[in-house]
């Protein structure tokens, strides 16, 4: 069964304010794709258009080969979980989970059995007779997920379902969502602003910024081969150096870096701080620098270095992340070495 989602040239404006500027996204059947972006980038609006809760100004949404534009929300083969669990307060947990079955035209006879099975699946067996207020946040969100799955959707839409939970629970729940996704035959769209969350559970990530799809790729690519400065920055790359490609090298303000022979074209190079090494000795690919400051970042040390420019009297800041045993003094002269194959040329300068 093809449960893929195809989003074709979706545009959306609220009044004169464009929120989505022509989004094209092809989610293969059975995959879990995250729509990632900071708040206000239009990711939730896109999800609501896929759900049918919002109408696109132009463009089309397909599930499999089926055009969805004229199909109303309740008739789409979807189920959606929101940021808040939104358990209906007048119903018990069991009644909440059974909601889609009871709302359907031909309610099945074995509702109670199915509800219990579903509650077992989300690890809340025996909760059917409890009331929404008696559960913790994580439990409520699992009930909400169970209620959505009860509809047996082709497409599962998750709108930041974990952002209201505390950190430990979030990690547990995101793995749980991945497990659930794998055990059902469905395609999942997962909206989040948390890149770690997206990296951990997605087959692919669609990264959005200001209503534009910046990059759509497997999680690893966003770290290794970001396509734009924004993507590199969002995924934590702290050194985006500008310069000019000449043959196999990259001319920056502070000197020439050697590139991998298979490099792409562009005027920016991303050098991830954890891919750089700091040492007291020169190496084959290195440049001299001076330690400006350092601080602990988790269990590692982030070292701010100043690299004197060759073209002017200024210096360029380069950040190197090292393990916690690095022992350098401020103002110490050091060398920063790099691996040419780990330098990535960014094609788009935005």
């Amino acid at each position: 069964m093809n449960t893929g989602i195809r989003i074709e040239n979706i545009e959306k404006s609220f009044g004169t304010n464009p929120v989505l500027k022509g989004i094209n996204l092809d989610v293969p059947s059975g995959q879990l794709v995250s729509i990632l972006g900071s708040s206000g980038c239009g990711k939730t609006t896109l999800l609501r258009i896929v759900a049918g809760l919002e109408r696109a100004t132009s463009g089309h949404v397909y599930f499999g080969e089926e055009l969805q534009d004229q199909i109303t929300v309740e008739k789409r083969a979807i189920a959606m979980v929101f940021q808040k669990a939104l358990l209906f307060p007048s119903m018990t947990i069991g009644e909440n989970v059974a909601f889609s079955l009871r709302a359907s035209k031909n309610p099945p006879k074995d509702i109670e059995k199915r509800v219990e099975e579903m509650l077992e699946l989300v690890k809340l067996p025996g909760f059917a007779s409890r009331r929404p207020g008696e559960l913790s946040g994580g439990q409520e969100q699992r009930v909400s997920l169970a209620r959505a799955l009860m509809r047996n959707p082709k497409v599962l839409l998750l709108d930041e379902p974990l952002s209201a939970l505390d950190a430990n629970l979030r990690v547990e729940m995101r793995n749980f969502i991945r497990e659930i996704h794998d055990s059902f035959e469905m395609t999942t769209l997962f909206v989040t602003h948390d890149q770690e969350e997206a990296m951990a559970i997605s087959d692919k990530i669609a990264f959005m910024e200001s209503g534009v799809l910046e990059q759509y790729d497997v999680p690893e690519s966003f770290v290794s081969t970001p396509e734009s400065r924004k993507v590199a920055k969002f995924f934590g790359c702290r050194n985006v150096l500008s310069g000019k490609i000449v043959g196999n090298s990259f001319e920056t303000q502070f000197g020439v870096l050697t590139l991998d022979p298979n490099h792409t074209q562009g005027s920016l190079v991303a050098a991830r701080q954890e891919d750089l090494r700091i040492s007291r000795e020169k190496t084959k690919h290195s440049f001299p620098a001076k330690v400006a400051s350092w601080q602990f970042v988790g269990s590692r040390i982030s070292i701010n270095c100043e690299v004197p420019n060759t073209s002017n009297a200024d210096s360029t800041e380069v950040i190197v992340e090292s393990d916690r045993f690095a022992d350098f003094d401020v103002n110490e002269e050091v060398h920063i070495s790099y691996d040419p194959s780990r330098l990535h040329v960014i094609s788009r300068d935005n």
Partner: protein
Amino acid sequence: MKLIFRPFFLGLFVFWIFFPFLSIIIWSVAAGWRFPALLPEEYSMRGYAVSFDPNGDILRGVITSTGIALTVGVIATLIGSAAGRAIAMYNFKMKKAFQFLVLAPLIVPGLAVTMGIQILFIKYGLSDTVRGVILAHLIPTVPYVVMIMSGTFANFDRAYEEQGQVLGASRITVLRKITLPIILPGLAVSFLFAFVISWSEYILTLLVGGAAVKTLPMVLFAFLRGSDLTLVGAASIVFMIPPLILLRFTSKHLVGRSSSVTGLGSV
């Protein structure tokens, strides 16, 4: 200190509320009660016998009033809920003007309004009819319902309805299974207000219904003019019963933590 004074003030409060009723209750069973006597010299059930006479004006008035007040309660709650929802949850052109117009009947004296619409009512044949009276009673009742329901809807999370929709429920199912249970307290209180206002309405009924529509207040005023205080006492007790019964079933929504009827001042 606290333990001593609380029952005292509570007693004072209860006395303050119920003392006026005492004289009505006594009058309703008094056969004769002249000035210097502290209590009536004779008692009789004549007042109640007349009140519950199947062919008497009072019982007929009770039936007419109940019918009108129930209908007004239902219609006002329906109209007022829709308007309250619009005010609380949506933005539209001329919203401020709409809010003002909806609430205007609370400020403009009902009498002034009725004098104006009476001509229209006569023209459309609504004068002296129950339909006309029901319509006129909507003027003072709808604004209260709008106020209560806009407060209720201001506390209502629209996302519940969307959650229902994305689970495959039609609009009707969403309204019935999700929205109604959540706004039920507001609806109950709205109905109570509309019922009680309609139930005790006199001027509007008099002007629109004339002598043809005899609600209980009309009958009561007639008796008051007849200065038969025994009858007035008994009829007054009868007059209080239906609102009290209704209050019994809606009071849990008026107070208490579960109440969603807050933010009356949001309009």
